[in-house]
């Protein structure tokens, strides 16, 4: 039933999408109005909250079953149902605001800060919430099996964290003002912190969690400052009022006014951008995301691939009208996205840890999305978010399944021939399909459609260099994606002995504490294939990924959804009415389909050559390169371009040294020298004068007389001095 509805919307939208094209930079979109009667939308937030509280209760009462997982899955599933219901009920043309309760509401005379806790339900919100809650439910289901060895307090903690994440993500996406968004923004940061640091006994996990939070905070400062400035300039933080204001005088007019109004307004988009870059792991903040892979794989899939990291894209699409407050804002986004995409792809090529490859590929794909926003294609960005969510979730979940089955083994140099091992079929083939998507295999992969839009829009927007970078990155992506798949799933069939050798020898990220695990020995010697929950989830998400092909093409359902939201300015912004006799190359949307397919296939072919047909060639190539003058480049790529080390040397260490220096200053100069010194002053005076107290009577008499003389001199000299001073004055 739902499917038929989607189909009808899809077909209907195809006709109307063009109508939304109002020309360059002045796309109008409906602004939400407060409404009654949709109060149950609050359930989307309430259900994860309930799940969170229940998980806390379970943790305290020592539940040692899968109850937390089922509770969470039930709550999140219900939340998904509610979102679906909202979507079916909602009128895309008339978004609404659902006020829940009053949060911050201050006013003084004419000034006011108002941030009611309300839900802004428009197409963009619903789009995001649909895949967030949907994937959340599925991945929670996956985790119920994946995390089963941890049943107990840690299990509760995990699902509590997932619930917090969904709650915060709900606030982020559904909040009807920037402060609520900020609430969710920090909330997802915290959830991510908790979940990355899930294996808290591992120092690397704790450090990764800390790093994620702190790097995010840097971006958050930008976001916060952007929110302050927005409030200062526009006097409100509520989207509906903000959009009304921005649309009233037209975005261009607003931009001109902003330029006249001074830098305080002009930098708003850049500040918001900084927040987005932090959350979505773009340059220069991307460094936290690869480390975040320390978290359990479901977390990586849900938070660090599918949903949370797209919050930056959401923010920019949501505040797209504000992006036009400065003409350089959108190009900045585009270039940062492009640069990140390329940089991360180059790093991803040279990693051996499959989860890390996926992490860098996420960073790279997020770069595409930002490129999409930057070239004024919110539709492209949103479409890529949507498709990427599914296929990247699959990739991560399959990586997780492998890691789970092989006791933490993630090295693609070790793993091989999974295709031939019993019980891994679903994993292998869902992974294959997801890899196709990521590589942008023509027609049948969802990634192909969404990526094409972005690349084509880049050319249409008049940024061929960026488009070129995108294409290059696409090739690289195809290469490293299939490098992983060919390495892990293909190759000679491993016998039992080989399989045992493949097992991870450490507990790296393994989620096992092995307490009460009867088959411990077996575990360490032989891989175990995933069970029904993992396979079910993989299949469902893969089907969803296939299904998304139907939704993403141009003028389809997704474009319609975006066109009716605040991202409207980025739908069709680069469309120009082409003359009928324009050549093939005049419309990038036309030729990109072919070019991108070619590039993707080329990448796959190279991967196949190096990693499937000629598995030792890769090593030889590496050896050749290392012997050549390109040595440094290869090493740098393998070491992630030394960015972490650079940041450490440029930011962290100086700050740490400053901290130590200031502490020394505080302790020795301020406290001991100044304060204690001043405190010692009376003592020193006393010590100086103490020889006068020599116990000899005559000295006392002499000093007494001396005192009298001093007083006498004072009496005599003071009037003279005063006279002198008076005379001088």
């Amino acid at each position, binding site marked *: 039933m739902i499917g038929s509805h989607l189909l009808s919307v899809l077909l209907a939208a195809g006709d109307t999408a063009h109508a939304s094209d109002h020309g360059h930079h002045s796309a109008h979109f409906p602004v939400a109005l407060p409404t009654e009667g949709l109060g149950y939308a609050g359930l989307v937030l309430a259900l994860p909250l309930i799940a969170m509280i229940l998980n*806390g209760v379970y*943790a*305290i009462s020592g539940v040692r079953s899968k109850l937390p997982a089922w509770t969470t899955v039930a709550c999140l599933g219900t939340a998904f149902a509610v979102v679906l219901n909202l979507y079916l009920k909602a009128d895309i043309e008339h978004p609404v605001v659902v006020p829940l*309760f*009053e*949060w*911050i*509401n*201050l006013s*003084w*005379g*004419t*000034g006011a*800060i108002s941030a009611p806790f309300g839900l802004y339900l428009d197409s963009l919100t619903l789009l995001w919430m649909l895949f967030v809650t949907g994937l959340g439910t599925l991945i929670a289901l996956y985790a119920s099996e994946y995390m089963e060895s941890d049943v107990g*307090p840690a299990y509760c903690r995990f699902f509590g964290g997932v619930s917090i994440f969904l709650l915060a993500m709900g*606030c982020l996406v559904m909040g009807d003002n920037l*402060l609520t968004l*900020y*609430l969710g*923004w*920090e*909330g997802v940061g*915290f959830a991510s*912190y*908790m979940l990355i*640091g899930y294996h*808290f*006994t591992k*120092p690397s*996990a*704790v*450090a990764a*969690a*800390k790093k994620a*939070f*702190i790097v995010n*905070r*840097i971006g*958050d*400062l930008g976001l*916060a*400052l952007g929110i*302050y*400035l927005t*409030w*200062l300039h526009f006097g409100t933080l509520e989207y509906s009022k903000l959009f009304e204001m921005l649309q009233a005088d037209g975005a261009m007019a607003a931009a001109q006014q902003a330029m006249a109004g001074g830098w*305080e307004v002009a930098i708003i988009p850049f500040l918001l951008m900084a927040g987005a870059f932090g959350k979505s792991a773009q340059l220069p903040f991307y460094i936290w995301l690869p480390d975040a892979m320390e978290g359990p794989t479901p977390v990586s899939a849900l938070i660090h691939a599918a949903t949370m990291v797209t919050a930056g894209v959401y923010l920019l699409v949501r505040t797209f009208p504000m992006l036009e407050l400065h003409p350089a804002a959108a190009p900045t986004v585009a270039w940062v996205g492009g640069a990140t995409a390329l940089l991360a792809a180059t790093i991803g090529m040279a990693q051996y840890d499959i989860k890390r490859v996926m992490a860098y590929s996420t960073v790279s794909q997020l770069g595409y999305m930002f490129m999409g926003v930057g070239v004024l294609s919110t539709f492209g960005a949103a479409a890529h978010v949507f498709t990427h969510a599914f296929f990247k979730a699959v990739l991560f979940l399959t990586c997780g399944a492998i890691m789970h089955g092989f006791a933490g083994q993630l090295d693609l140099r070790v793993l091989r021939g999974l295709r031939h091992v019993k019980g891994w079929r679903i994993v292998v083939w869902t992974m294959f399909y997801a890899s196709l998507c990521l590589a942008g295999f023509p027609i049948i992969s969802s990634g192909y459609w969404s990526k094409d839009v972005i690349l084509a829009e880049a050319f249409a927007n008049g940024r061929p260099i960026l488009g070129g970078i995108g294409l290059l990155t696409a090739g690289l992506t195809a290469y490293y994606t299939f490098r992983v798949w060919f390495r892990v799933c293909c190759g000679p069939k491993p016998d039992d002995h080989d399989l045992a050798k493949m097992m991870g020898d450490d507990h790296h990220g393994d989620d096992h504490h092995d307490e009460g695990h009867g088959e411990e020995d077996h575990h360490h010697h032989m891989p175990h294939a995933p069970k029904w929950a993992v396979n079910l989830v993989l299949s469902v998400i893969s089907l969803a990924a296939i299904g998304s092909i139907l939704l993403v093409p141009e003028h389809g359902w997704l474009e319609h959804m975006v066109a009716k939201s605040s991202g409207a300015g980025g739908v069709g912004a680069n469309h120009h009415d082409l003359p009928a006799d324009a050549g093939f190359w005049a419309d990038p949307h036309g030729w990109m389909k072919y070019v991108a397919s070619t590039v993707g296939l080329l990448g796959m072919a190279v991967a196949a050559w190096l990693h499937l047909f000629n598995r030792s060639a890769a090593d030889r190539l590496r050896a050749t390169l290392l012997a050549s003058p390109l040595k440094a480049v290869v090493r740098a790529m393998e070491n992630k371009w030394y960015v972490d080390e650079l940041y450490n040397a440029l930011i962290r260490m100086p*700050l*740490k040294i*400053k*901290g*130590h220096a*200031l*502490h020394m200053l*505080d302790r020795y100069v*301020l*406290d001991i020298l100044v*304060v*204690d010194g001043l*405190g010692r002053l009376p003592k020193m005076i006393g010590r100086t004068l103490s020889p006068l107290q020599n116990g000899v009577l005559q000295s006392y008499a002499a000093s007494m007389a001396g005192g009298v003389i001093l007083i006498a001199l004072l009496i005599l000299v003071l009037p003279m001095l005063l006279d002198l001073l008076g005379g001088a004055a």
Partner: protein
Amino acid sequence: MSPLLLILIPLLSAVSVAFAPRGVAFRVATISTLVTLAVSLIIASDFGHWYDDGFGLVTELSWLPSIGASFDMHADAPAMWLVLLSTVLMPVCVIGSKTAIKERVREYYAWLLVLEAAMLGVFLAKNLLFFYVAFEFTLVPMYFLIAGWGGSNRASASIKFFLYTFTGSMLTLAGLAYVAWRFADASGGWSFDIPALTAFASVDLSATEQFWVMMAMLAGFAVKVPLFPVHTWLPLAHTEAPTAGSVVLAGVLLKLGTYGLFRFVLPMTPVGVVEAVPAIGALATIGVVYGALICWVQEDVKKLVAYSSVSHLGFCVLGLFALNPSGLQGSILYMINHGLSTGALFLLIGMVYERYHTRDMNRLGGLVANMPIWSAFMVFFVLSSLAVPGLNGFVSEFLCLIGAFSATPDNAQWPGLLGPWYAVFAGTGMILAAMYLLYLTGRLVWGPYRAPPADKNSGLPTDLSSREIGLLLPLALMCVWLGVQPSGLMRTLEPSVERTLAAYPELVPTQVESMAVLEEVNGG
């Protein structure tokens, strides 16, 4: 119900605790603080001036009528909130000390109760002398608490604490006395009535007089806050104080400084304030960053939290001197929030200390393995301290920063003398707060478990006992409540804040002009 009860109950119970049998001292103190809390709640519910700028609870009690000294009391909404903060924190302190304090119990609880009386006296005083006596009298019990039940370095800590703050407040006394003298000179009779003196000083003192009076008052209040660079007594005092002492110190005593700034400096010497705002703002901002950076290299947990107070109170002062309602409201809310969350952090650290007798992060770590409930609370209050939205810290920090941000001279309604740069610079404190607080949790809560053998004699379970949970839970709930529903509280602050700031919208432009003239003169 008379507000006099708020001071008399703790004071009388202090006397009775001091002479009660050893065994009942704790019980008497607990009951006394709980009764005081109940009384304060009743008084607060009857308080008639929540939504206007008036003073309620006016009570007159003569002391030395000839020189105008009295024990008169009054309170406006901000004062009432701080009274509530104090009465809420005191039972927590008393109950929290049950197992930690095993020797000289009677004296200990007696001093705590005296401290409560003095603190409430500060917030309720209507008479300047009464205010000052109470303000100074907080030092005495605190001194004894540190010196008597403190850590290994308690002797020097207590002396430094006492002398440092005392020296500062002597200057404050001089400034206030000057105002009183000028008032007596002008009106022909001594009076120490705070409203009268405030009205007099803000209008009748010349610019130079206001400036120096402000500097004198600032000397005492800034030390108490503590504002960079007069903060160095704080880490030592905090580190050495017993847990309850730290809680009160962070929770309430520091607020005496900011309360003094709010109650005296801002309304009394507006002309002086506008001259000093950029400098004070700069000090506050430096304090934010400075304190945070120092926190980040601490090994002693308690010292870390102590330095975090320096950082946090920098926000508070920045908000105060933004000279606009958002800053001031945020600042007052900050006082309450900081009291709750930092108080709770000290309490939590005290609980660990009771079990392991160390606060060294090199020796403690991964406590979540042994103490999950404690860790949950720790993470919660760290988040609150981090100003994560949805918890209490966020609203106040947000408002302080937004206040500083909008405090530009060209702001139409509330011109100020700070501006975006102060806010941006202080805003980096948000990042640094994340750094040091996560460093704290990363070392203490997470990571591989390491701890010295637990003290078998402490009589405490491995994780928190129900008594301890009972202490922390109300604080946590208040944090959530203030984070989710701050508007009710904020609305009560509005009128008083606007009354306090009444003079500034006219003064600030004048100051800006005179600064411009000065610049021109210097430039030419």
